[in-house]
Structure formats: C-alpha cells, structure tokens
C-alpha cells in the first residue's frame, strides 16, 4: 500500500496543480507542490524501513496491464534495497529543489504549470525506480523524458527553449527505440519482464542474445543518461529553469541509465562483453565532457558537461563491475551537482538571468553564502577529501584499476584519472570566473532568499558529509546496505580488495585533483581568457561531434524528407495516379466528338444498334 502512496502523492499534486492551479493562490500551489513530494519522501523513508525491503523486496501488484496471447505484464510496484535508495534520493533531493523553486520561480506567471510539471516528473521518476517489471520501468523512463521535454521547453515562447526540448525528446527517443527493442528481445526469449524472472532466466539465455539485448538496453541508457554518442541533448537542456536542471538533468533523471544497469545487473554480468562496452563508453564520455567543460563560457553548460562527465564515471563503475560504487557516486553526485546547479541558479536569480561567465565575476562579496555553497559543491566535484565526491570517485577509480589488473584495459583507469584532473581545473575555473575578481557587470546582486538558501545549505551539508555513507572509516554503510542486492556480482570484488595496494591508488586521484585545482587557480587567477589555440577550438566545438551529426544525419535526413515529399510523392506516386486520370480524360476527349448533340443522330445510332442485334439473332 505504501508504494502506491509514494507514487500517487506527487501524481495527485500534478492533477491538482495542473487542473486547478491557475485558480489557486501561489502559496497553495507551492505548498501542494512541495508538500506532496515531502510526503512522498516521508513515505519512502517509511517504506524503506519495512523489513520486506531488506529481504526479498516489497511488492504491490495493482492490476494486469497488458495481456495478449501468452504474454502478460502487470502494473506493479516493487521496492528492494536498490529502489529504496533511489526513491530516497529522488524524493529527498526532489523535495529540496521543490522548496528552492518556490523562491526561484516566484515571479513566473506560469507558476502552477511549473509545479505541476515538476510533480509529474517526481511521480514518473518514482514509477521508474519503483517499477515492478521492465515495462513499467520503461513507462517511467519515457514519462521522465516527457517531463524533461516539458520543463526544458517551459518558457516555450522562446524558440530556443522549444527547440531544445524537442531535441531532448527526439534524441532520447532514438535511444529508447533501442531500449524498446531490447525489451522486445527479452520478452520474446524470456517470456516475462518481471525483474526476478529475468534475472533467473539470464543464466540460461544464449550469450549472443543476451549481449544483443543488453547492448540495446544500454543504447537507451546512453540517450537518457547523455553518454556518447547521444549526449547532445543535455547541454541544450540548460534552456530550462535552473532548478529543473538541478533535479532532472543532474540529480535524478539522467542517472536512470545507471539505475537500469544496476537493476538488471545479472543480465549484464552474463552478457559477454557488454560491460566492457559500458566501461569504455563511460570512460570516453567522462574525459570528453570534462575537456569540453574546460572551455565552455556558459556557467550552466559547464555544469551540464560536468554532469555528462560524472555520469561517465558512473557507467565506468558499472562497466568495471563496481556497481555499489557506481550507486554511491550516483548518490553523492546528486547532492553536490544539485548544490552546484542551485548555486548557479542563485547567481542567475541575482544577475537577472546572466550565465555567461565573461559577464560574471566578483560575486563572492555580495553573495557570500551562495559562493560558499558553490565552493563546497566544487570541492566535492573535484574530489578533494573529505568532501563526498572524493570517496565515491576514489572507489570507482580503485575499481577501474583492479579491473585492469584482472585483464581489463588500463586505459579506462587512465582516462578516469585524467578526467579527475580536468574536472578539478574546470571547476576551479568556473569558481574563479564567477565569484572571484572584480565585478564584471555593474548590477546590484543580492543574496538569495531563505527559501532558496535553506535547501542549498542542506545540500551543502550532504555534499560535505555524504561521503561518510561510503567511507571506510565509517564502515561503508551504504555499500554494506547494497551488498545483498549485488550479492552475486561486485561484492566479490569488494570483499577481496587487497588493502595495501590501495594506498598509492587512493593517493593518486587526490594528488591529481589538487594539482588540477592549483593549475586552475594559476591559469584563471587574473581572469585571463585562456584560448588554448587549435586545441581550444577543437574543444569549444565539442570535438566537432554535433557538426558531424548535422552533416551526416540531420541535414541529409531533411533533404531526404523534402526530396520524398516534393518530388517522389507529388511527381512520382501521385503523378502516376493523376497520369492515369489524365489518360482517361484524354481518351474521353477523343471520343467526345461522337456526342453531337443532335437527337436524330442518337436515334439513328439506336436504330443501327437494333438492326445489328436483330441481324445477329436472325443470321447467327
């Protein structure tokens, strides 16, 4: 029962704010928006405390959703340790961001619509993480994509916002088409989409099929979690309101791909080289996005590329079979990246929407708390101990190193390490350009109101102390909690970890991060525009990946569409149809002379016909 309540609460908020929100006072709209999510958070805590969650999992089957032939899927919810963690992250971070939004969106005329969309998102995300089978997960998966579309294009009267939303939806759809095919493949071979049945069946499935299925599912994950090659929508998604970027495009929705792999890890473990692909994609994406973040001028887009990069880390963790570490990083990342976005939002709020870092600067003075929050988030992102990011990233890199020693590619670890360095550089750059130096824009920046400050404070605390969830000194409570879920996978790695070797390996990332911070400090101390020459041009064009897509896919597709619509359709197919018509018409013209209009001619013709018939009858 409690599971239904968790999902139903934000859904109710959506219905109320969506249908009647325009007629309600703002205070009530905000209260409904936040209250339902807060209540869902409380319900999630309650549910997570249920002993069934720690055991086999809490299930709630609502009704039979689809039934055709032998194939049956029920609409059901399910909560085990993994989804409990996700539900807590979603509702917890979600609640904080809802509260923040009350302040951030206070002046927006479409206040109710905003909260309705946000509530719908939380409900969809909860459906995604609490879905009892793969198809329900897919429903949530697509619905969060819808919410993302709606919220990116929230200010739909801006052409760019509308286009970005559409781009996000379509790119996600490309991934989802793969995801759907993966589901079809699994449904056809396993005959069922219940998670436990799939896990049980995965051992007996042909490895080739399983590899294909998991790769298809991973294609969906690259779309939703903005990995190469489908990352292109996430930077543009920054057109949406900043709290949305924090919630959807940093903390929760984009991590759905990671969650999906964790959820289906038995399949991925049995599926040949899929995990290697995942690791490689994660590593490349992490490095690629970090380098692009290095030259980006838009503060929010820096954070967007940073998100892509950090998601790359998570996939890297999944790929090297350090799944608990991936989930750990997912959690800490949700804290510190949400914090960074909210701080950036606070800056935008103060600067009336300016996000270009060349026009920012010197904000540390008037916006002390925001700057402090950004600094905490930045240090966590850079992986400086004892901030949260350090523990999770460190664990991932350790895992990558061990994976390499067990026969994996060392390049993955090296890429992770290089990314750590670049990350430290770009986060320092963003910090310096935004908050240090003289004020670049003569305005009257003001500190954010309390309703925005408080959520940031809570997130700052979590970004600072969240590492304890996975810190060895604290007994790794989160990892221990997840262990039973991953019992047949990464736990082996986790347990047999040779402690001594860890020394150097742990120290190296920290050193690299600190070096990065120092480098960033040295480079951007006096707000110089570091161009980096040809390399900089390469990076600021995002490695020319989108240019390539435009040239190879988008433009030819448009040309093809116009060719088909304007030539093949009108002149070819319809031309043939009209040609037949014209032919008949011309034949009619040819014989129309027979129709003289003289009745006597017609009568003569009738008589002639009669004669012929009579003659035939007589002389046959």
């Amino acid at each position, binding site marked *: 029962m409690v599971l239904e309540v968790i999902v139903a609460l934000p859904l109710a908020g959506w219905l109320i704010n969506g249908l009647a929100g325009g007629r309600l006072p703002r205070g009530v709209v905000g209260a409904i928006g936040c209250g339902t999510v807060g209540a869902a958070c409380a319900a999630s805590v309650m549910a997570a405390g249920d002993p069934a969650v720690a055991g086999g999992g809490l299930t709630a089957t609502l009704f039979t959703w689809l039934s055709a032939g032998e194939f049956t899927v029920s609409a059901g919810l399910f909560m085990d340790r993994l989804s409990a963690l996700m539900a807590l992250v979603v509702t917890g971070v979600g609640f904080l961001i809802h509260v923040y939004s009350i302040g951030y969106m206070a002046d927006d005329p479409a206040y109710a619509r905003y909260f309705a969309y946000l509530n719908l998102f939380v409900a969809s995300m909860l459906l995604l993480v609490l879905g009892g089978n793969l198809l329900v997960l897919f429903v949530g998966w697509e619905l969060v994509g819808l919410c993302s579309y709606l919220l990116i294009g929230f200010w739909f009267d801006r052409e760019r916002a509308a286009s970005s939303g559409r781009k996000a939806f379509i790119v996600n759809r490309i991934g989802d088409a793969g995801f759907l095919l993966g589901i079809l493949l699994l449904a056809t071979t396993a005959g069922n989409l219940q998670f436990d049945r799939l896990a049980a069946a995965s051992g007996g499935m042909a490895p080739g099929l399983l590899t294909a299925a998991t790769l298809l599912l991973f294609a969906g994950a690259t779309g939703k979690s903005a990995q190469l090659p489908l990352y292109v929508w996430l930077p543009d998604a920054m057109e949406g309101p900043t709290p949305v970027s924090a919630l959807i495009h940093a903390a929760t929705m984009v991590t759905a791909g990671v969650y999906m792999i964790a959820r289906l890890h038995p399949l991925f473990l049995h599926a040949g080289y899929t995990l290697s692909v995942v690791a490689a994609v994660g590593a490349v994406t992490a490095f690629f996005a970090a380098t692009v973040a290095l030259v980006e001028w838009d503060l929010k887009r820096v954070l967007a590329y940073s998100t892509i990069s950090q998601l790359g880390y998570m996939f890297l963790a999944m790929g090297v079979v350090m799944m608990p570490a991936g989930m750990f990083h997912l959690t800490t990342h949700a804290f510190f990246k949400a914090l960074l976005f909210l701080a950036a939002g606070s800056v935008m709020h103060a600067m009336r929407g300016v996000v270009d870092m060349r026009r920012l600067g010197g904000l540390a003075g008037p916006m002390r708390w925001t700057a402090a929050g950004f600094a905490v988030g930045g240090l966590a992102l850079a992986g400086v101990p004892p901030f949260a990011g350090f523990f999770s990233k460190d664990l991932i890199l350790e895992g990558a190193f061990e994976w390499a020693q067990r026969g994996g590619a060392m390049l993955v670890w090296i890429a992770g390490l290089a990314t750590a360095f670049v990350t430290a550089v770009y986060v320092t750059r963003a910090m310096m350009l935004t908050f240090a130096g003289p004020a670049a824009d003569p305005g009257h920046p003001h500190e954010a109101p309390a309703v925005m400050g408080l959520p940031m404070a809570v997130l700052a605390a979590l970004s600072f102390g969240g590492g304890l969830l996975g810190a060895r000194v604290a007994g790794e409570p989160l990892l221990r909690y997840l262990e039973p879920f991953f019992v047949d996978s990464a736990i082996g790695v986790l347990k047999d970890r040779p402690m001594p070797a860890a020394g150097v390996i742990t120290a190296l990332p920290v050193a690299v991060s600190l070096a990065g911070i120092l480098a960033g400090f040295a480079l951007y101390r006096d707000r110089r525009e570091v161009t980096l020459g040809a390399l900089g041009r390469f990076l600021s064009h995002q490695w020319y990946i989108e240019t390539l897509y435009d040239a190879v896919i988008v433009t030819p597709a448009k040309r093809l569409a116009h060719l088909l619509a304007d030539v093949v359709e009108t002149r070819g197919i319809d031309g043939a149809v009209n040609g037949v018509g014209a032919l008949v018409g011309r034949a009619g013209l040819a014989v*129309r*002379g*027979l*129709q*003289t*209009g*003289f*009745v*006597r001619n017609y*009568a*003569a013709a009738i*008589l002639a016909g009669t004669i012929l018939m009579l003659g035939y009858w007589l002389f046959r």
Partner: protein
Amino acid sequence: MSVPLEAYLALSALLFVLGTTGVLVRRNALVVFMSIELMLNAVNLTFVAFARQRLAIEGQLAVFFVVVVAAVEVVVGLAILIAIFRTRDTVDIDDVDLLRG
C-alpha cells in the same frame, strides 16, 4: 381468324418503320412526337394480334398500359415542347443540342 397473323405483323412492321423514318428524318418536334405515337401503335397492334392468336388476355392488358404511358408521355412531352418553345422560340429539335460533347 381468316386474316393471317403475318398480315397483321407485316402491317405493324410497316407502320413501325414509317414511324422510325419520321423520327429520323423530320426536324419538327411535334411531328417527331407523332411518329413516336405511330411506333407505339405499331407495337400495340402486334400485342393485340398475338393476344388473339394465343388467346392470352395479358397481351391486351399490355396495350392498356402502353396507352396509359403514352398518354402521360404525350402530356409531359408536349409540356416540354412548349417550355422549349417559350425559351428558345423554336420547335426544331436540331436547335436543342445542349448535350453536345
């Protein structure tokens, strides 16, 4: 029946052909109408002749219905004729050729 059936039929055929000739040759709509009446009467004659030969009263009934229809036809036809005459000032059927292709 001392007059042979063939005689009646031959008379009928002659009258019918006179009618067709009239329809084909004459341009005066009124005369064309009369020629049509001539053809109808020729047919009626065959009906009656066969009715007599086969002693089937249905033949005569057919004539009855032909007469009814002919009466209607003449009434409507002459009305059309007058309507045409009123608008086009002619009874020459060659002048009425709206259906020319």
